[in-house]
């Protein structure tokens, strides 16, 4: 652009200006290289945090599913009116809980490679948007499992007078404890996946 103007008007300073322009041009790629590296540096940190949170969310989801799945309790006695055995598959909500947490745990495991891709390729938006969408779906599933489990656990602890639903925790203490712990684990997984979605959103920023 500048060389064109100079070539249209003046001849003698043309040589000097070309040398000056070449000198400036040789400086520009170096300057650009120095400027490009720290500009996207924070994205790599965000992606590493994302990976760490992902591993923790997987651990929490697996723990919740395992705690609920192994929550059998058999009482050493029995009476005429009450059952003497309680297991998670007596309640369809708890069956849904185990299946949903298993699905979420396997999704998080399968998304670890995608997370590593976003660490390596900091500026690619495609994998990040895919992770954002899938993480949102996983958050919905985890929250659904946790909340429905919490509703049943609340009923098991307190019962309900209006509907004549008796609290079963008084007979089955261990079962109740394990099931409540599983619900807490699923809420921890939900909070971690919420952080994952927030991190993906922040990393999507155009720098």
């Amino acid at each position, binding site marked *: 652009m500048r060389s064109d103007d100079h070539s249209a008007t003046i001849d003698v300073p043309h040589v000097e200006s070309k040398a000056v322009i070449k000198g400036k041009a040789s400086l520009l790629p170096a300057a650009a290289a120095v400027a490009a590296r720290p500009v996207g540096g924070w994205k790599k940190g965000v992606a590493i945090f994302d990976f760490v949170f992902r591993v923790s969310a997987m651990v929490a989801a697996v723990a919740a599913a395992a705690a609920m799945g192994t929550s059998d309790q058999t009482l050493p006695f029995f009476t005429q009116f*009450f059952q003497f055995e309680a297991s998670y598959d007596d309640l369809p909500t708890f069956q849904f809980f185990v299946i949903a947490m298993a699905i979420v745990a396997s999704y998080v495991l399968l998304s670890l490679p995608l997370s590593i891709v976003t660490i390596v390729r900091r500026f690619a938006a495609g994998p990040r948007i895919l992770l954002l969408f899938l993480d*949102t779906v996983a958050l919905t599933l985890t929250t*659904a499992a946790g909340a429905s489990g919490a*509703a049943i656990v609340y009923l098991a602890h307190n019962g309900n007078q209006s509907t004549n639903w008796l609290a079963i925790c008084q007979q089955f203490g261990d079962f109740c404890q394990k099931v409540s712990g599983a619900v807490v684990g699923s809420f921890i997984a*939900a909070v971690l996946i919420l952080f994952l*979605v*927030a991190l993906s959103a922040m990393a999507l920023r155009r720098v």
Partner: protein
Amino acid sequence: MKGSAAVELAEATRAPSAGINRGISILDLILRIVALVCTLGSAIAMGTTNETLPFFTQFIRFRAEYNDLPTFTFFVAANAVVSGYLLLSLPISIFHIMRSGAQNSRILLIILDTSMLALLTAGASASAAIVYLAHNGNAKANWLSICQQFNSFCERISGSLIGSFGAVTVFILLILLSGMALSRR
């Protein structure tokens, strides 16, 4: 000459992506209004449940309201909070239509949308668990299904779940749209 041509080319490539960003923001606003209607409808449908049976027996109550079950109280509260949030986020969405390049406000909106999605899903799925129990009961826990006595109460609480779950789907779409708009140049 070369300079002005280069600037024109850059503007030409930027114009269609700015137009798509504007379209995404308009779709965002429309979906937000749909979700507002859904959650408000759910809250009102659950909150106005009141059924009184014309008879009574010794063992079964003769009146059913939403606040007999704490889970339904939580459902009404969650839906009310989410519809209030959606109403307050409409101005931000309109701002995004006008300024398609805003980044920080979009990130804030994504984070708030995700929190509201979690709250809404929690309320909806907890109520779904109780509605399932109300329809079917549970033999092992000796929990009787109450739907056989309270028909219209049961229909109302089941129907109010539909609006809530529809709003959950809309929220997922909203988050996806915001993410797409955020990453486009």
